């Protein structure tokens, strides 16, 4: 049986597990897929986090992708990183760079078991800060300088591809090369606050095609977390990676309060498999939850099965469909054949499911784009608080 088919039926433990340590964040990125901002009072304690790491060690989870929120603002963050690596659980953590001082960078550079991913959503300050907030570009640059100066080779620069930065791929690559880092590109999902801005930020069809060609050319040296598997529908088999939706099969998410979701982009009750505080712990959820069993059984491709691209794209991303109001057995909203665009036209405004949780800062100065899926964006005005006000739309719009 081909390996990809084996993966469809699930593994004894996830290959890649995302663990969001806190909903607290110093930023308010408009596309935050976990709607982070404020800490949740029910977040796992240090002792609970350590017990979970013990469980990962027993299950031989090789490494965890730690995120948030901004994980480094947890006072016990470094303690937990040390605990994980001492227990043979590697750590890759995503950060906006706020705590990556010279000293921290030196410490990090000394370990084989810790990898760092700096989030950057624009190759220029203007493009980045429109999405991630004022000052965030400079914070990221300072962190990258510190890591590079400390000799931390091959750290990751993580970019969510948007309509505004899709034309900057070569510039991102140049930034990564300058700091001896590796570029990681991921797909914008309409998850969390991302649903509010998806219409404005998601790449155009033309940009998707260019992105695909760029990935085929440079993809061996660029990480994607397999996130663009819907582009495999272009069909010449050139896209590196397994090109498989791993939700509940090879990946999952543990959120700050211990809830286990099928994937990091699906924070909604529909995709909630259980909680690690339950009797069977994380292992019980991974191996026995009904939701995961269902995801590991053969899936119906619905209307997509008659499409010649189905074997390549497998209908695309579950979370992207769900949060844009499309049926899970229909096309991806960014279907390369254009079926998603046609399906979206039939979704009533405001009918798409909302995320189950929202930890956004209550006093945000910059509100997310005030449109809902299915509505046209309002016209720019001088007083417009839209973070994308005045933004030049990309080509093909």
């Amino acid at each position, binding site marked *: *049986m081909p390996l990809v088919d084996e993966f469809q*039926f699930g593994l004894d433990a996830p290959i890649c597990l995302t663990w969001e340590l806190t909903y607290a964040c110093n930023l308010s990125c408009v596309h935050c897929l976990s709607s982070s901002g404020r800490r949740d009072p029910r977040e796992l304690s240090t002792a609970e986090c350590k017990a979970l790491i013990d469980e990962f060690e027993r299950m031989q989870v*090789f490494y965890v992708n730690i995120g948030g929120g901004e994980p480094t603002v947890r006072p016990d963050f470094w303690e937990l990183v040390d605990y994980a690596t001492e227990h043979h659980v590697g750590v890759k953590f995503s950060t906006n760079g706020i705590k990556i001082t010279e000293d921290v960078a030196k410490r990090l550079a000394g370990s084989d078991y810790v990898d760092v991913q700096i989030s950057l959503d624009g190759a220029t300050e203007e493009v980045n800060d429109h999405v991630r907030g004022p000052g965030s570009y400079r914070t990221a640059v300072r962190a990258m300088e510190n890591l590079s100066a400390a000799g931390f080779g091959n750290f990751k620069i993580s970019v969510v591809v948007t309509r505004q930065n899709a034309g900057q791929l070569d510039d991102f690559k140049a930034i990564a090369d300058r700091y001896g880092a590796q570029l990681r590109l991921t797909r914008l999902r309409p998850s969390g606050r991302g649903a509010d801005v998806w219409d404005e930020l998601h790449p155009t069809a033309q940009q998707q095609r260019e992105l695909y060609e760029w990935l085929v050319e440079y993809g061996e040296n660029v990480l994607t977390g397999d996130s663009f598997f819907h582009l495999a529908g272009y069909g010449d088999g050139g896209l590196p990676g397994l090109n498989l939706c791993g939700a509940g099969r090879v990946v999952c998410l543990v959120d700050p309060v211990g809830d286990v979701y099928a994937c990091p982009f699906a924070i909604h009750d529909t995709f909630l498999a259980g909680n690690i505080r339950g009797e069977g712990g994380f292992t019980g959820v991974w191996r026995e939850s009904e939701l995961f069993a269902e995801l590991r059984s053969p899936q119906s491709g619905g209307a997509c099965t008659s499409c010649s691209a189905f074997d390549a794209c497998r209908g695309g991303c579950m979370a992207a469909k769900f949060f844009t109001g499309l049926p899970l057995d229909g096309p991806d909203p960014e279907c390369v054949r254009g079926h998603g665009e046609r399906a979206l036209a039939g979704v009533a405004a405001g009918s798409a499911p909302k995320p189950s949780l929202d930890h956004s800062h209550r006093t945000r100065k910059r509100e997310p784009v005030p449109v809902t899926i299915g509505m046209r964006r309002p016209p720019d005005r001088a007083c417009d608080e839209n973070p994308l006000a005045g933004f030049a739309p990309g080509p093909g719009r």
Partner: protein
Amino acid sequence: MSTDRDAAAFDLDGAWELDSRVSIRPERFGALLYHFGTRRLSFLKSRTMLAAVQALTDHPSARAACAQAGVAQAELPRYRAALAALAASDMIHPRSV
């Protein structure tokens, strides 16, 4: 990626061992391997291959490890190619005896 030439160059009669930074997790189809140094994931596509890799350290040669794992003579070229691929990605390396 391994090629036929890599496979032919793989020294079946040499002593090999798993890199100390590699962790192996048995799975239904074989096993998953993760190298903490290169941060690369790899796969063993059968339980027999897993047994062969696990036997490397305790056997004087890769050939002996394969025999211990129950690899038939006719299958040896396929296992040699898989071992060559593991060597090319630094998962295993020659052991000094």
